[in-house]
């Protein structure tokens, strides 16, 4: 039905945000919700988030994927949160769990939000956090390959057929418009 021509890039450098409950006010503060374009949000991603060894000015520009903990994206429904990621070239977030609205907003934008179990996350953080790490995403085979120097780890993932279709369609507007 869809050839995936609108599919986004899900590979690149990984930014580890090793904390639970990162909320959408932290991802993009409300004062920037007065912008009427996604692009205008770019400089403000994670601006107020306080975390040791995290400097948004340096860490975001170099990253194309985020690995984080549980309940990522809780709070406000603002789609400005995934947009702020998207306009910074970050289309992939891997977490132990997501808040419902944020997760849906990601797929609705054709972006990838993938849950992986805590044990695997613990291992990834232990092995890779703090190093320059990349993730290569094989979307059709559902495999992430994390790599840093000589270390490499392949992590299989699972998403529903419906979520997969949204990614192929490039988001919910394209999907819904062709069906309803």
């Amino acid at each position, binding site marked *: 039905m869809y050839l995936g021509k609108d599919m986004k890039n899900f590979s690149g450098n990984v930014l580890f945000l090793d904390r639970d409950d990162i909320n959408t*006010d932290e991802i993009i503060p409300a004062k920037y919700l007065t912008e*009427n374009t996604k692009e205008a949000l770019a400089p403000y991603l994670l601006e107020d988030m306080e975390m040791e060894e995290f400097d948004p000015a340096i860490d975001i520009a170099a990253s194309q994927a985020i690995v984080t903990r549980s*309940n990522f994206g809780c709070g406000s429904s603002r789609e400005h949160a995934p947009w702020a990621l998207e306009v910074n070239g970050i289309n992939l977030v891997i977490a132990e769990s997501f808040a419902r*609205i944020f997760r849906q907003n990601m797929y609705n934008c054709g972006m990838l939000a993938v849950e992986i179990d805590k044990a695997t996350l613990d291992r990834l953080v232990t092995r890779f956090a703090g190093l320059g790490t990349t993730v290569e995403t094989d979307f059709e085979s559902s495999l992430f390959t994390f790599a840093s120097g000589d270390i490499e780890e392949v992590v299989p993932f699972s998403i529903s057929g419906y979520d997969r279709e949204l990614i192929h369609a490039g988001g919910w507007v394209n999907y819904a418009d062709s069906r309803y």
Partner: protein
Amino acid sequence: MGKTIAEKIFDAHKVDNPSGDIRVIQLDAVFCHEITTPIAINDLVKRGKDRVFDPDKIKVVIDHVSPAKDSKTAVQGKILREWARRHNIRDFFDIGRNGVCHALFPEKGFVRPGYTVIMGDSHTCTHGAFGAFAAGVGTTDLEVGILKGVCAFHYPKTMRIDIRGTLQQGVYAKDVILFVIGTIGVNGAAGRVVEFTGPTVKQMNMAARMTLCNMAIEAGGTSGICHPDETTVKYLWPFIKNTYADKASALASFQSLISDPDASYDQVVEIDVSDLTPRTTRGFKPDNVVAVEKMEGQAVDQVYIGSCTNGRIEDLRTAAAVLKGNTISEKVRAIVSPATPHIFQQALDEGLIKIFMDAGFCVTNPTCGACLGMSNGVLAEGEICAATTNRNFNGRMGKGGMIHLMSPATAAATAIAGHITNSSLFTN
């Protein structure tokens, strides 16, 4: 096997089952405000699909920053206003007639038992108080809702919270929901509908039920939901009197929606509130809930009474009863924002506005404003606010500010004392 109220609503609105437990459902109402809607409108225009599925099912308000505070917020209002006009959306509320969406739309009778409602606003769960499935969504879901009148959700799993016990004097629905969130955690209801049942809920008026459902999202819930009953019918009667022969037949119709006795729940939590004392929060997460007495003496810079959680007339009456004959501490500034013009008018007629002003409160027009740090009471770095709002996130009311969530009674007492304190000190 019986069904929950949320399952019944989903089954009655099913459009498609594209895969697994995903249901595409028909929407009875799509609510829009000026922060999350303009980008959807712009995208529809860009796609050449500047249409609406049904102008009478779309309700529009400018509420988050009202009046506009700068050119950017003026543009957001302009986009929404022009869009509502060109699509003949009759229920559009501009300044003067506008109010905080989750207080205004119930007041207008736009939510009915059994309805499906979405809005680009996480506190849309408030409307579940009427026995509706009401969910906050992002702008893309809103865009498809506007265009097609549908939205996709997982078939609902429900967490039932049974609340029993008579609330002590000075303890309110806000204290109950803070206690619930403190018990189950910010992730405690994730991905599930939160059904509030039990004798305590049955005793609550619609304002109190809205306060409960409003904060379901702070525990990760998709929608709050209460069983429609006599209280619901009484509230809605002016809007439904031409639809039903009498209140009894309206009640009979609504009660066919309520959860069956043998419905299956994902989880049931039982809470006894008989001994509950007033609650507040500390830190930056809404589940970090403590007894007010634990925070007794914590100085505050600002007190804020308002928002979709606690800006209704019942809340203003409660706060005014505490404030009457008192003045606020010289160490604090205090703001009250009645949530709608109707509430403002009622507060004027009942003499509440005079009580607030005599006490030293600033009375502002209805707007979401300060609750999310956009206008009308933003905090400076290092400042502390006692607020009747719903989120104490870091930076929520202004970068570097700290928020303590509480009931209107506790907030009023705190304004008088200049530090967090229990309202019982100021009431008989």
